[in-house]
């Protein structure tokens, strides 16, 4: 089951790789690998994601923040996590949007995995089943998302995704 | 007799035509509404007759003075660019 490798719209030489794993038993171990640098990736909590595009917008922004030296966290992958979250507090964002040790699924985002090595390493590490990234829609916890992003009913009636990407894109502008 | 203050001017002109021209020029612009001054003009033979009525002496004086400024200008204009052909 191939992951989704996307060329960055604004920076042609940069790529975003997305992958979704379900029935995962060893999220803790995957997070450990990132912690100790075995591989670098964003390990995202699937229940907070309504659509891969939400992650793409966050990832694209992270790459851009990195290029213009305006990142709030230490690397582009942690920046994706931070961008996804409406909160300005970094650790709170990691807690809410990073995959938890007891989660059964993970949504992976990797920037500039040119050779596919990182994806390969992740695939070898994950004890679970890789599925199409769009299946994340079945794993979204809309109530929790609504609470955390403070979505209004009007917004939900049109499109939760649009509401989320608008917040992600405008986050650093809203609160200064 | 109204309690208004009144001023009447009788301005003689060399000819009726010139009196009419003065009337034609000076009767167009009305007194400012808020000014509280009523003014009427008419020509009798070659005399321009101007009647002013105002509640306050001050506004009457302002109106008459202003009228005289314009009248003088009309006379100077006729003198310089007249007499009527």
């Amino acid at each position: 089951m191939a992951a989704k490798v996307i060329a960055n719209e604004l920076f042609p030489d940069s790529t975003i790789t997305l992958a979704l794993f379900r029935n995962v038993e060893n999220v803790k171990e995957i997070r450990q690998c990132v912690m100790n640098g075995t591989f670098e990736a964003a390990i995202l909590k699937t229940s907070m994601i309504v659509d891969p595009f939400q992650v793409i917008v966050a990832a694209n922004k992270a790459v851009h923040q990195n290029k213009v030296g305006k990142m709030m966290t230490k690397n582009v992958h942690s920046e994706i996590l931070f961008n996804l979250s409406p909160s300005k507090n970094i650790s709170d964002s990691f807690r809410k949007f990073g995959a938890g040790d007891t989660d059964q699924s993970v949504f992976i985002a990797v920037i500039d995995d040119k050779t596919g090595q990182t994806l390969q390493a992740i695939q070898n590490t994950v004890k679970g089943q890789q599925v199409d990234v769009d299946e994340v829609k079945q794993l979204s916890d809309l109530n929790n998302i609504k609470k955390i992003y403070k979505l209004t009913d009007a917004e939900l009636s049109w499109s939760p995704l649009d509401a989320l990407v608008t917040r992600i894109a405008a986050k650093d502008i809203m609160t200064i | 007799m109204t309690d208004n203050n009144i001023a009447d001017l009788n301005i003689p002109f060399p000819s009726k035509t010139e009196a009419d021209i003065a009337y034609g020029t000076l009767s167009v612009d009305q007194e400012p509404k808020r000014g509280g001054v009523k003014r009427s003009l008419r020509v009798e033979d070659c005399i321009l007759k101007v009647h002013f009525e105002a509640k306050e002496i001050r506004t009457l004086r302002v109106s008459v003075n202003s009228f005289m400024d314009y009248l003088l200008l009309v006379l100077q204009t006729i003198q310089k660019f007249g007499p009527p052909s």
Partner: protein
Amino acid sequence: MVIAIGFEGSANKLGIGIIQDGVVLSNPRHTYITPPGEGFLPRDTAKHHREHALDILQAALQEAKITPEQIDVVCYTKGPGMGAPLISTAVVARTVAQLWKKPIVAVNHCIGHIEMGRLITGAVNPTVLYVSGGNTQVISYSEKRYRIFGETIDIAVGNCLDRFARVLKLSNDPSPGYNIEQLAKKGEKFLELPYAVKGMDVSFSGLLSFIEERAPVLIKKGEYTPADLCMSLQETIFAMLVEITERAMAHCCSQEVLIVGGVGCNKHLQDMMRKMAEERDAVLYATDERFCIDNGAMIAQAGLEMFKCGMTSPLDDTFCTQRYRTDEVLVKWRD
């Protein structure tokens, strides 16, 4: 072959011009200059006009080498403008019209500027920025009217410049705006000022009070020189004017822009407008001081156009009015 004479006196300039079928035969003018730090008041301005009108009329006829009989129509500024100065000028126009037995045409001051600009520059259907001491309007012709697309919501740009010139006690000769322009050329340090564009309208009063309050302090502390402040003021208010003009051009798909009115002589405003126009492959038309600033020929030109389509006024209808919107006039002379 039609000859028109125009009488203009709505503000502090008294001008009488004679035009023969699009050719300006004469256009003498006299400006009422007040001491530095002072604006011009209606009563004194009217007195000035009354004192100079006949000499200027004499000069106009002599320069044009024509006699009153040859004139076909007398045109005068009906408004907008200052009451007493307008009336003082109209009094002379009405008197000579009766003396010479010629028809009279009552002209809107703003339309005088527009028609003169079109005549001199050859612009066909430009978006017009009319900027002077008393007016700030973006005008575009459509369906028999000069429609006002954008304007100032409070004071006119010329008024804003003049009042800041008073703060700096700049001379009013030839005009406060001119002296701000010269001083601004030496300005370097930019001070950010309140930029208020609302749709196609602009607002200057907030900006004026902002700079009026701060100027003395900033200058005393040596942070900004008067030149810096003049430059910053010009950059900001002209940028606002160019922006609303560009918006109107985009809205009307116009490829011509014409600047008229006293402030239109400002070379810096012209340069900024030209850069905007060129970026849109449009053309800037501007007139020089002879026609940009209030003058009699512009009233004659507009009056000529009106006369040719029978828009004369009966004598008792030739009153003056301080408020006279540009879009109140039926523009019969344009298709």
